């Protein structure tokens, strides 16, 4: 953990009405690594993501991406930073009035000067990587949840981003589909070598692909550790979380054990 972090959150606080959701979040994300934020639902995990993306301004604190405070830089610089991002939203956020092909092609059409021919090639390449064939002319509403997420991922990866954000990539998918999502993740990350930040509560499966796991509890990142250390951490909140999510299912076993 000696290298300079790619993204750093310093004492980020955010309050909505009378409720303080983030109470001083500190987190570092390192290049080429996969960092996973876990924690209970509705406690601000996705909110951290939105702060890094610059969609929400913190009440206090800083969000540094490659050393730049994204709330202090101008629109142009923000755009330049965002062009290194790829985002898979929780519900994929596909443009519902466009076909699958047009959705994936949109960043290429709007942001590059690629010809239609080149665009077709790149889009098909990315869609093949996701194992989606023959859906190019379908609309998002005609796809299943898992397919929609894969199209969302294809769109996020189409410009070969340096950092990819995943907001609950497997929520709402059955076991087989979520395993497939992880396979696609592995495949694309080893091929494209991006830094990943995943918000998830799919514990313990998510430990397998994480380099670092961070627990958000009570508006604070309790600790950010490699998965093995995370599972044996002495931090009371992490201990409780690990026990709760990976512990016994039957109460009797706990008693017997």
């Amino acid at each position, binding site marked *: 953990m000696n290298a300079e972090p790619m993204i750093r959150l310093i004492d980020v606080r955010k309050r909505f009405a009378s409720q303080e959701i983030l109470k001083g979040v500190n987190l570092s994300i390192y290049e080429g690594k996969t960092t996973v934020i876990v924690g209970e639902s509705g406690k601000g995990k996705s909110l951290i993501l939105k702060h890094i993306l610059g969609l929400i301004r913190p009440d206090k604190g800083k969000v540094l991406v490659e050393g730049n405070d994204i709330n202090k830089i101008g629109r142009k610089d923000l755009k330049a930073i965002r062009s290194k991002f790829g*985002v898979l939203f929780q519900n994929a956020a*596909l*443009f519902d009035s466009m076909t699958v092909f047009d959705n994936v092609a949109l*960043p290429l059409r709007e942001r590059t000067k690629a010809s239609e021919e080149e665009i077709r090639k790149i889009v098909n390449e990315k869609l093949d990587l996701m194992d989606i064939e023959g859906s190019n002319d379908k609309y998002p509403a005609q796809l299943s949840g898992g397919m929609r997420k894969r199209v969302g991922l294809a769109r996020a990866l189409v410009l070969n981003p340096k950092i990819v954000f995943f907001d609950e990539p497997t929520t709402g998918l059955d076991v087989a589909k979520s395993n497939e999502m992880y396979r696609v993740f592995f495949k694309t990350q080893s091929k494209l070598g991006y830094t990943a930040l995943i918000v998830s509560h799919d514990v313990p499966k998510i430990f397998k692909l994480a380099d670092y796991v961070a627990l958000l509890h009570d508006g604070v990142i309790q600790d950010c550790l490699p998965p093995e250390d995370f599972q044996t951490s002495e931090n009371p909140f992490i201990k409780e979380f690990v026990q709760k999510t990976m512990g016994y299912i039957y109460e009797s076993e706990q008693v017997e054990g």
Partner: protein
Amino acid sequence: MILLKYIEKLGDLFLYYVDQAGRMGIFLVNVIINIFKLPYYKISHITKQIYNIGALSIFVIIFTGLFTGMVLGLQGYNTLRKFGSEGLLGSAVALSLIRELGPVLAALMVTGRAGSAICAEIGIMRNSEQIDALECMAIDPHKYILAPKFIAAIISMPLLTAIFDVVGIFGGYIIGVKLLGLNEGSYFSGMYKDVEFQDIYMGFVKSLCFGLIVVWICSGKGYFVHLERKGGFGAEGVSRVTTNAVVLSSVSILVLDYFITSVLI
């Protein structure tokens, strides 16, 4: 104690509206800057919006224009006959359409047909994170979604108003000349004599302003649906904000109409 609570609520409401007004103002400036910013759009983005806002509104504009002209012909004829000046019917119909009714009624029809659609479309895009997704792709939604709609509305509205005026004059002709037997020559010659460039200019300025008002309020309301006071989430949030947008832009059209008239008259 109750009084204090009441004052507090009133203050909250006041702050909310000030906040909203500021937001909408910045929104308008942002879109206008983006209209003129390079790179320019693909022409297909704009033609698609002109089709949605303009071309699809033509039928309803012709229909309402015809009946407005017809009722003007009927009322005008009966009123003017009392003073023995039926010959003025042509100019009465033309002037009231060109100066007043054409721009206002066309704008109200476009608000109902296209404004509501714009608001709902953008509101749904906001609620399903599509606008956030665009921002994260470093595509400015002001440029990609909103600027083409603004350009299309500002181009379409004067054209729709012109169609409304012409069809209305034809409606007045049907009633006045064909049905009530007024002299055809006096219907049109009065019009040539009395309608001046100033009148057409006023109608044109009005239609431009109304086009901007409709697209500004409707798209702005949809764009900020998530910041609505009563909660702008889900289908209900979008439906509420669409209703608000249509009411607000209709009222603004009528209020603005008074002020433009008082300046240009």
